[in-house]
């Protein structure tokens, strides 16, 4: 039931995004200006006219646009002269690799920091954790990336500057993306842990003589982890968005870099395709998170 409802709202979101993209393209005047390069001939214009059904009413044009998108036809890139979908599929693994590694890093680091600041609250550990969190939240990701490159690649020479390769190439981009989202998640986890540690069931676990580490890491953490989990969708969204910026800093061949190239060359069909693919991933992840949450929290499973 919950899943069906979520599927419905995911579908609505996708429709909304497609509508936004469609409306934006028509708001600029002649959409063919956006979709053809400046070297296009009159025949190209004529062809596209027919293809998009520009003589038909708007809702019919939107129908054509949707039908094409569903069939996987996202048009052709102006610059690369290749189907947009092909270009995107080439770059997709890079972005997924980066976002995945950042997600794992954020989860591990925030659990570590969140638990530590809650367990050692009112000590220097909490202060340090809070400082890390607020600075992480405040630092511009693109600048942090540049600073990391300057320090670890240019000055110390420990890590590669840019590009995609072995795991060494992942370190700096992962750190850069993780910094911003880490703060929010750590705070949430820390306050959820603090709340859990004051709960009556913790006292009762003590009555049972459950060892302290087990009280913290099993009894409290399983409760505390649920709260931030509702934000996991938002955080994954931030990661994907963050990847656009971080990919440009580190020349990481992913969808983000592709999007930026599309922006710089005003390659509208490519940009539109990237947005739609991103939206599908975005909505799909949010859906997965919600289903996983429902599975984790017995109170809403029914």
């Amino acid at each position, binding site marked *: 039931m919950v899943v069906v409802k979520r599927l419905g*709202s995911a579908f*609505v*979101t996708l429709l*909304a*995004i497609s509508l*936004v*993209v469609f409306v*934006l*393209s028509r*708001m*600029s005047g002649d959409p063919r200006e*956006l979709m053809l390069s400046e070297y296009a001939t009159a025949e190209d214009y004529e062809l596209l006219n027919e293809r998009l059904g520009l003589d038909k009413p708007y809702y019919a044009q939107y129908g054509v646009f949707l039908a094409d998108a569903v069939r996987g036809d996202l048009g052709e890139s102006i610059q690369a002269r290749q189907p947009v979908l092909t270009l995107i599929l080439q770059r997709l693994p890079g972005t997924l690799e980066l976002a995945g590694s950042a997600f794992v890093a954020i989860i591990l680091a925030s659990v570590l920091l969140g638990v530590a600041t809650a367990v050692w609250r009112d000590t220097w550990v909490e202060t340090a954790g809070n400082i890390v969190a*607020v*600075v992480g*939240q*405040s*630092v*511009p*990701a*693109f*600048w942090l990336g*540049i*600073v990391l*490159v*300057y320090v670890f690649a*240019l000055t110390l020479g420990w890590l590669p500057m840019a590009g995609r390769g072995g795991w060494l190439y992942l370190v700096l981009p992962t750190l850069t993306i993780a910094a911003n989202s880490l703060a*929010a998640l750590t705070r*949430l986890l820390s306050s959820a842990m603090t*709340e859990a540690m*004051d709960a009556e069931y913790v*006292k009762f676990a003590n009555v049972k003589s459950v060892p302290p580490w087990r009280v913290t890491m099993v009894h409290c953490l399983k409760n505390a982890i649920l709260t931030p989990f509702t934000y996991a969708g938002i955080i994954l*969204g931030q990661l*994907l*968005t963050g990847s*656009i*910026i971080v990919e*440009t*800093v580190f020349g990481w061949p992913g969808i983000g870099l592709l*999007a*930026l190239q*599309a*922006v*710089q060359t*005003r390659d*509208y069909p490519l*940009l*539109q395709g*990237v*947005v739609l693919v*991103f*939206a599908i991933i*975005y*909505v799909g992840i*949010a859906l997965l998170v919600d289903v996983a949450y429902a599975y984790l929290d017995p109170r809403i499973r029914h």
Partner: protein
Amino acid sequence: MQTTKTAPESTAPDLPAAPAVSLATRLRRALRGAPLPAVAFLALVLGVALLADLIVPHDPLTGDLRAYSLPPAWKAGGSVSYFLGTDLLGRDILSRIIMGARISLIVAAASIALGGVLGTVLGLLAGHFGGWIDEVIMRLVDTQLSLPSLLVALVALVVFGSSFTVLVILIGVWLWPNYARIVRGETLRIRRYDYISLARIAGCSTWRILFVHELPGIYNTLIVMATLQAGWVILLEGSLSYLGVGVPPPTPSWGSMIAEGRGDLASAWWISMFPGLAMLATVLSLNLLGDWLRRTLDPKQVNQ
């Protein structure tokens, strides 16, 4: 929390009534625990942004090509006149940071004003009237919150071209759902209070109840949100400018300055470093101030 719950016997002693206090004492009390360095820095940024034209040591837009890529004053080859060095076109970095502060603050203030007003009004309507109005507005909020906003913004900036106005409208529209959601929640809370019923019994019009009686009840929430979001908007404007779709050149923006220095990191690190530090310090101060305001004014719902 724990003590009040488990051991009420000892933690809630009655306090004697507070004696009358002087204004100075009251002010000191109100500011207890305030992040004073952050407040001072924000005041500095604000002052610098207001007086930018008067205090810039050099023209931030045109450079002296003979003085290109100068390091900051304390490095070998640096010049005191160009205290933080110059960029590749010989423009003074300090002057550009000062002008950039103005741009950042204007974009933040304008877009938050736009998004805040839009979101507050819609949130008030949703919370006050409920029913289908609430349904429509909140559905809109949910949909927009689930969009990949940065990408939609990129598309819009490509379609409309980047300009100051487009940027402000875009960020404002990006922000409103957050306000709408929280204002709606607060309104639902407030309208249960007796003074709202009383106003209704007294025959106040719906609009009067909305804007005279309910709105003041959520000022605290709005102040905290706006402060916390100001930092976020500055980061966002920086990101867009960094990507080359924000404030169009040659207007100096911290984000585009950082982008300009990226290619010459090895030879001229200062071009990227200082605007980034300015941005970090400003956003950090705003976040510290916002956190303190949240603790002090304690609106329950703002949690991000």
